[in-house]
């Protein structure tokens, strides 16, 4: 839709044509072209990259901050760290679990898991990878050091890691854990070099990481950039990177990130905003790549508050929102309507469950039935999330259309999620985005619907709780899937929230980049990428 707009620079270019004619001439072969198209040519000429050969530069909004795997939960960490560290298990770009640093594994029973480790693998500093490194990693994660970080909690099912021989370890679990293997593919589960860590300490490690991955970190400058170099000794000869170096540049402002992409300062831009799609699409040298994600955006209700304690009001709100309009009109079609708090990528997704249709008449009926016409609802939204701000303004409009009144309140993102929501102080409705990186509905459902959980100040239902407990105690995929399907149906009846859409991540790529594949889960894997 953006194509019909006249770009600003075209107007400006016409206005400045006189004064800037000279400079435009010096700028390339299109200087003599004074027509409106001239502007576009300038634009394209600039996206050409000089001074880089077999190197890739990626513009990302957030920095790693702390490379130590036990000290982080940030998606921004895995964006870079996936190239540097590896776990026993590798999750590929299709989200399938593959052998990583372990060649093979086998469950002896529900709580005993044996790994056969890969031989001949070295860390970037030359230290050998073996069973001791695995044991060290998990002792550290589950011990005192790990207790100081947020990752330990994801691995508490592990009782002990037993070293059988140099290349065999057995994980003894204290309880069955259906998502353990997934957890071993990243974050706290990645293997760190024992000698290096002992010699230099965690503070040094957090800025000078060493792993076994296909790239090694050669320069890290916080909030500025990270430079990775190809690991020539990488154990998988098929996956030795094609690129010489990869540079991550930290550029928090989306508009600046796009400007860098347009001018050839970066080759790939992570997190293209919906509002920038038109610019990328109009640009001949840039391509837009979309990828589905596990992240769902939803409105959640504080079911303790009048009038949303009335299930009819929550149902009415679900009917009142035109999800397709939100996606098509506000997001240029980027987004997938969802019926529960998970996307297609999530284990437990119920393909038979339809999202609420847009039915304002039904909504009005329900609101009349509940006798709450004209009541004012407070809707909390993160102040620094432009997409959310746009969406809630449209939603306010939908709700006003069916007889409710909405008062939007902005709060800082962390204040909203970690102070207001847990305390039940986030109004009647709040905006919430969540995507479990385990890609298993357990993570989301447990946090949002289990009674008394941090993010769940008010919702409680016996049937929901039973289902949640049941899936947690099972390792049978079939059984768990069935439970999750039932759970999503029950939740749609109860309406503790109004799921809106599953996010689509957008990457913009300079055409010199080949074999790019955008990850579903933020974990860039760059081994196959080449540049012209």
């Amino acid at each position, binding site marked *: 839709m953006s194509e019909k707009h006249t770009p600003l620079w075209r107007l400006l270019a016409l206005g400045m044509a006189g004064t800037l004619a000279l400079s435009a001439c010096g700028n390339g072969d299109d200087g003599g072209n004074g027509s409106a198209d001239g502007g576009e040519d300038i634009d394209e000429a600039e996206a050409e990259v000089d001074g880089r050969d077999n190197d890739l530069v990626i513009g990302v909004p957030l920095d790693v901050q702390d490379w130590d795997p036990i000290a982080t939960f940030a998606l921004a960490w895995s964006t870079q760290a996936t190239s540097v560290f590896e776990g026993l298990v590798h999750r590929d770009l299709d989200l399938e679990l593959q052998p990583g640093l372990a060649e093979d594994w086998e469950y002896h029973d529900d709580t005993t898991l044996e790994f056969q480790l890969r031989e001949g693998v070295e860390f970037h500093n030359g230290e050998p990878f073996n069973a001791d490194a695995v044991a060290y990693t998990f002792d550290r994660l589950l011990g005192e050091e790990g207790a100081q970080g947020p990752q330990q909690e994801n691995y508490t099912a592990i009782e002990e890691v037993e070293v059988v021989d140099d290349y065999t370890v057995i994980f003894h679990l204290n309880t069955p854990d259906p998502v353990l293997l997934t957890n071993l593919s990243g974050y706290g589960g990645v293997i760190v070099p024992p000698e290096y860590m002992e010699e230099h300490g965690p503070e040094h490690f957090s800025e000078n990481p060493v792993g076994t991955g296909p790239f090694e970190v050669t320069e890290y400058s916080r909030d500025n950039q990270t430079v990775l170099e190809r690991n020539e000794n990488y154990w998988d000869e098929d996956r030795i990177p094609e690129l010489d170096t990869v540079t991550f540049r930290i550029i928090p402002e989306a508009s600046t990130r796009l*400007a860098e992409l347009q001018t050839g300062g970066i080759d790939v831009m992570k997190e293209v905003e919906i509002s920038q799609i038109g610019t990328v699409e109009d640009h001949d040298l840039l391509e837009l790549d979309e990828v589905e994600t596990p992240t769902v955006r939803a409105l959640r209700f504080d079911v303790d508050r009048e009038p949303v304690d009335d299930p009819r009001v929550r149902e009415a709100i679900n009917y009142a929102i035109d999800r397709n309009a939100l996606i098509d009109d506000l997001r240029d079609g980027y987004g997938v309507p969802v019926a529960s708090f998970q996307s297609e990528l999530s284990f437990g997704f119920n393909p038979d469950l339809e999202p609420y249709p847009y039915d304002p008449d039904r909504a009005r009926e329900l609101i009349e039935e509940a006798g709450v016409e004209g009541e004012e609802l407070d809707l909390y939204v993160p102040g620094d999330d432009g997409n959310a701000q746009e969406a809630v303004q449209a939603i306010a409009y939908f709700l006003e259309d069916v007889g409710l009144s909405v008062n939007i309140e902005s709060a800082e993102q962390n204040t909203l999620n970690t102070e207001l929501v847990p305390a039940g102080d986030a109004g009647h409705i709040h905006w919430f985005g969540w995507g479990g990186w385990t890609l298993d509905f357990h993570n989301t459902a447990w946090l949002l619907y289990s009674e008394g959980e941090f993010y769940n100040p008010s919702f409680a239902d016996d049937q929901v709780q039973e289902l949640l407990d049941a899936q947690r105690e099972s390792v049978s995929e079939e059984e768990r899937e069935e439970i999750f399907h039932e759970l999503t149906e029950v939740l749609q009846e109860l309406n503790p929230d109004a799921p809106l859409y599953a996010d689509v991540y957008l990457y913009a790529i300079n055409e010199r980049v080949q074999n790019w594949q955008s990850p579903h889960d933020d974990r860039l894997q760059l081994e196959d990428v080449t540049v012209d």
Partner: protein
Amino acid sequence: MAKFILRRLFHAVIVVFVISLLIFFSIRLTGDPVAVMFAAGEPSQQAIDNLTAELGLDQPIWVQYGIFLRDLITFDLGTSFRTGQSVSSMVAATIGPTTLLAAAGMAVAILIAFPVGIVSAVKRGTVLDFGGRMFSLIGISFPNFWLGIMLILIFAVMLGWFPASGYGTPQHFVLPAITLGLILSGILSRLVRSSMLEVLNQQYIATAHSKGLRSWVVIFRHGLRNALIPTVTFMGVQFGGLLAGTVIIEQVFSWPGLGRMIIDAINARDYPVVQGGVIVLALITVAVNLLVDLSYSILNPRIKAGGSDS
């Protein structure tokens, strides 16, 4: 003189102390860093308690403040919750880029403001004067982030003259320094103009004229020197404000500076970094002001009674 210096030092200590109180307690109102760190997980109470204790947040708040002050005296700013690095090293890494940006902005401001201010003053009441004053007022009428984004659009995206963002080469300084400098030049050119006017009205300029010295020579020899004093004062007084004014420009231009680090730290509830960063900013401001005052009282003994104090 010694008494004056002692007195000013005493004031400086009070100011830093008050700021340490303000920042220490206000940042603790923003929320629990442990909750932010666990935002994506399913922490047990045990894990939350462990981390709270590890970060020293389980102690009474006055004890925490006492520890903070005690460490501050030995220039130990603590350890970042988020990065595990010492705050001193994080501040050391970011103060350079911020100071350089501030200095570059100041240089741009001077390059613009002196010619504009001098021409305005000498050609007082003419169209040139009006134009100069309009220019300086327009300079301070832009929202700085908007100006920054517009400059990126025009000079990086459209014309391709300068890089849009980042830090490293001299070219990277151009756009952020111009953004900062344009805004500063608005204030500075007014200062230059008014101090030039003061000089031009004074007796010795008329005398110089009557001696037949060419007017531009007079203006430069006497006027410029006179205009330098308020300029230096302005830079001194504004230096702290300038460092803070770079905050938004750092955000727009992805500049790895102190202001951006503090904002990120506020959002992440990384108390030690916020405290350390703000205290360092305050120390610099106070020190610069002290130096300006001292050099003042040396240059101009009449105001030695205590500078701004009466």
